[in-house]
C-alpha cells in the first residue's frame, strides 16, 4: 500500500487502529479511577488473564524465559477468579488497597498483528505507575498480548498475557491490574 494513495482499506485500518486505542484508553481510565466492576465487564466470560514468571536465561535458552500457562504464574485467572479479585477490592477490608494506591496506566505502541474479522490480536506496551501511602513508588513496564473479540460494535478482552520487564518482581505485591 503506497502512502500517497489513500484507499478504503487504509482508511478502514486507521479507523480500526483508532478504535482499538480508544478502547485501551477507556480501559486505563476505568482502572485509574478504581472502577473495577466496569473494567471487569470488558472481559468475555471465557477470558484468561495471565502474567508468567520470567527468568534470566542465556540467549541460547531464551525460549524458556517465560513460564507457560499451566506452570507457575503471577496471574493465571479465569473470569471467575478475576471477579473474585474485584470483589476482594470492594470488601472495604482489602488492606493493601485501603487507602487505595494511586495508579496511572499508560498504554502505547499499539499494534494490531492479526484480525480474522471476529477477533484481533493486539500487542501493546504499558507503563503502570503506582504510588502508595507517603513515599512508596512502583513502576512496571511491559507488554500486553491481547485477543480482542468484536462484540456489539466494540471489543471485549478474550485473552490477555502480560509480560513484565522484571524477573525478580521489585515490588511487595501486585494488588493492581494491568
Amino acid at each position, binding site marked *: 500500500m503506497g502512502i500517497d494513495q489513500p484507499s478504503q482499506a487504509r482508511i478502514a485500518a486507521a479507523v480500526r487502529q483508532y478504535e482499538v486505542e480508544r478502547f485501551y484508553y477507556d480501559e486505563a481510565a476505568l482502572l485509574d479511577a478504581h472502577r473495577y466492576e466496569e473494567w471487569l465487564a470488558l472481559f468475555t466470560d471465557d477470558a484468561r488473564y495471565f*502474567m*508468567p*514468571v520470567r*527468568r*534470566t*536465561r*542465556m540467549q541460547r*535458552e531464551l525460549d*524458556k524465559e517465560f*513460564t*507457560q500457562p*499451566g*506452570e*507457575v*504464574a*503471577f*496471574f*493465571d*485467572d479465569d473470569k471467575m*477468579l478475576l471477579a*473474585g*479479585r474485584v*470483589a*476482594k*477490592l*470492594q*470488601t*472495604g*477490608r*482489602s*488492606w*493493601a488497597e485501603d487507602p487505595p494506591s494511586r495508579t496511572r496506566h499508560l498504554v502505547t505502541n499499539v499494534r494490531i498483528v492479526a484480525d480474522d474479522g471476529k477477533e484481533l490480536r493486539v500487542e501493546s506496551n504499558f507503563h503502570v505507575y503506582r504510588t502508595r501511602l507517603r513515599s512508596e513508588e512502583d513502576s512496571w513496564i511491559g507488554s500486553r498480548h491481547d485477543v480482542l473479540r468484536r462484540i456489539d460494535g466494540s471489543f471485549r478482552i478474550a485473552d490477555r498475557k502480560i509480560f513484565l520487564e522484571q*524477573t*525478580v*518482581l*521489585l*515490588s*511487595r*505485591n*501486585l*494488588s493492581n491490574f494491568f
Partner: protein
Amino acid sequence: MTPTTTDVDELVSLERGEVDRRIYSDPAIFEREMEQIFGRAWLFLCHESQIPAPGDFFAAVMGRDNVLVVRQKDGGLKAMLNTCAHRGNAVCRADEGNAKSFLCTYHGWSYGIDGRLLGVPGHKDFYAGEVEKNRLGLTPVAQLASYKGFVFATHDPKAPPLEDYLGATGRLGIDLIAARGDMVVVPGIQKFVVDCNWKIAVDNLFDWYHPQVSHASAFRSGALGPPPERAGGYEQIDMAGVNMDSGAGIDLPVGLITASKFDQVVVIGEYGHGIGGPTASSSGNVEVDSSWRAAAHARETLGPVGVEVAGHPSIFPTTWVTVVPVQLSLRIPLDPTHTEIWWFTFVDRRLPPEAQRLMVMMANRVFGPAGVLEQDDGENWSQATAQSRGLASRRVKHLVNMGLGRGRVVKEHGLARIEGLTSEHGQRWTYHAWAQWMKGTSWEALRAATTPGDLL
C-alpha cells in the same frame, strides 16, 4: 550496636515474650546475623527435580553469597560460589538453565560443571604456565546434602550433618511435602522483594491469629473459594466491641473465625525449627484433600504426631513449608529492611494432569505477590519494619506473648509438641532460637540451648 552475648539476651525475652524492635532494622545486628546465622545454618538451595540432567544449574542464595547448584555427569550434585577465582566476576549470570561449562566473561577463565578450572587464556604466554589450575577452581560450599530431594548447603564445615540439623521437626517439615507422592517442582520460581525485615516475614508463618483480619477481604470475597453467600453465611469476628470506622464489624465466612480457635498443634525442635497451625482433624485444616495422609507410606513416614500436623513448618532460619498449597518459601535477607521472597511450587507427578493443574492453580491464586492472601501481608510487614526505626517507636516491645507460660510441652515419638488454641508459641520459640544463634556459641551449646524444655 554490635551485640554481645549479654546484649542478645536483652533483645529477646523468652520469659516475657518480648522482642526488642531494634532487631528489625539495626545494621550491626544484621551483619551479625549474616555471620552467625547465615554463615552457619543449613540453607535450602533448590529441589533436585529442578536440575535433572547433567549441566542443569540453579542459581541460589546463601546469605549474601551467590551459589550455583549443578547436576554432575555422574548424577551427583555440586554447589559452588558463583565467583571467578581470578578477579571475582560471576561465572554464570542466568537464574537457571543448562551449561556445558561456566565462562568468566571478564578474562575468559573457564570452569567445568564440577567447578574445576579448565582454561586460562594466555596461560603459557602471560603466566609462564604457572597458574595452579588444580588449586583455583570455583570454591565449593563447605557442606552440601540432599534430604529426600531437598538440597541444602552450609558455609560451616563444622555444622552437624543435614539430617541431624533438621532433626525430627525439620525432617517432618519436609516430609509433609515429600511423603505426599512423587513430588517435583513446577517451572517458575516466584521471586519478589518486600521492604521488611526477614524475621517479620518468618514469624508470620506461625501466625494463625492474623488471617481473620489481614486476609478478611480474601475470605469474604470468594476470591479463595465459593462466596460465603453460597456456603455457610457470615459471622462476626470478636473485636472486643471495637469496630471499624464505618461502624461495621468484620464479618467472615462461617468456619474461618472459629477455625483459628480450634485445635492447634505447635511442634518445636532443636536449632529453632518449628511447626504451627491447625491439626489435620480440626475444622481449621484448610486442606482440600487430606486423603494422602491415610496412605500407609505417609502414615509411616510422618508418624502419629506428624500425620496430624496441618500447619506451617519452619526450618530455621528462612525456609517455610506450606501444605496448602504444596509450596516451599524462602525469606532471603537483602539488608535489614528488605527481604526477597521466593516460592517453589510442588505437584505429585503420579497424579492425573488435571489434578496437577489444580495444585498449581491453587498456588498461583493464594500465595506470591498477586496471591489473594499474600498481597495483603507485605504492607503489614513493611510498616512494622518501618516503625522499628523510630527512636521512640523502637523502644516499644514486639510482643509474642500469647499463651505465654501455658504451653505444656509433650515429648512423644521424637517430637516436642504443644496442643491448644491459637498461640504465639512458635514465634516465641523462633526468637529464642535466634538469640541463641546470635551468641555465636559452639554447635553443642547451641543445640543444648535450643532443646525444648517442659513449658513455653
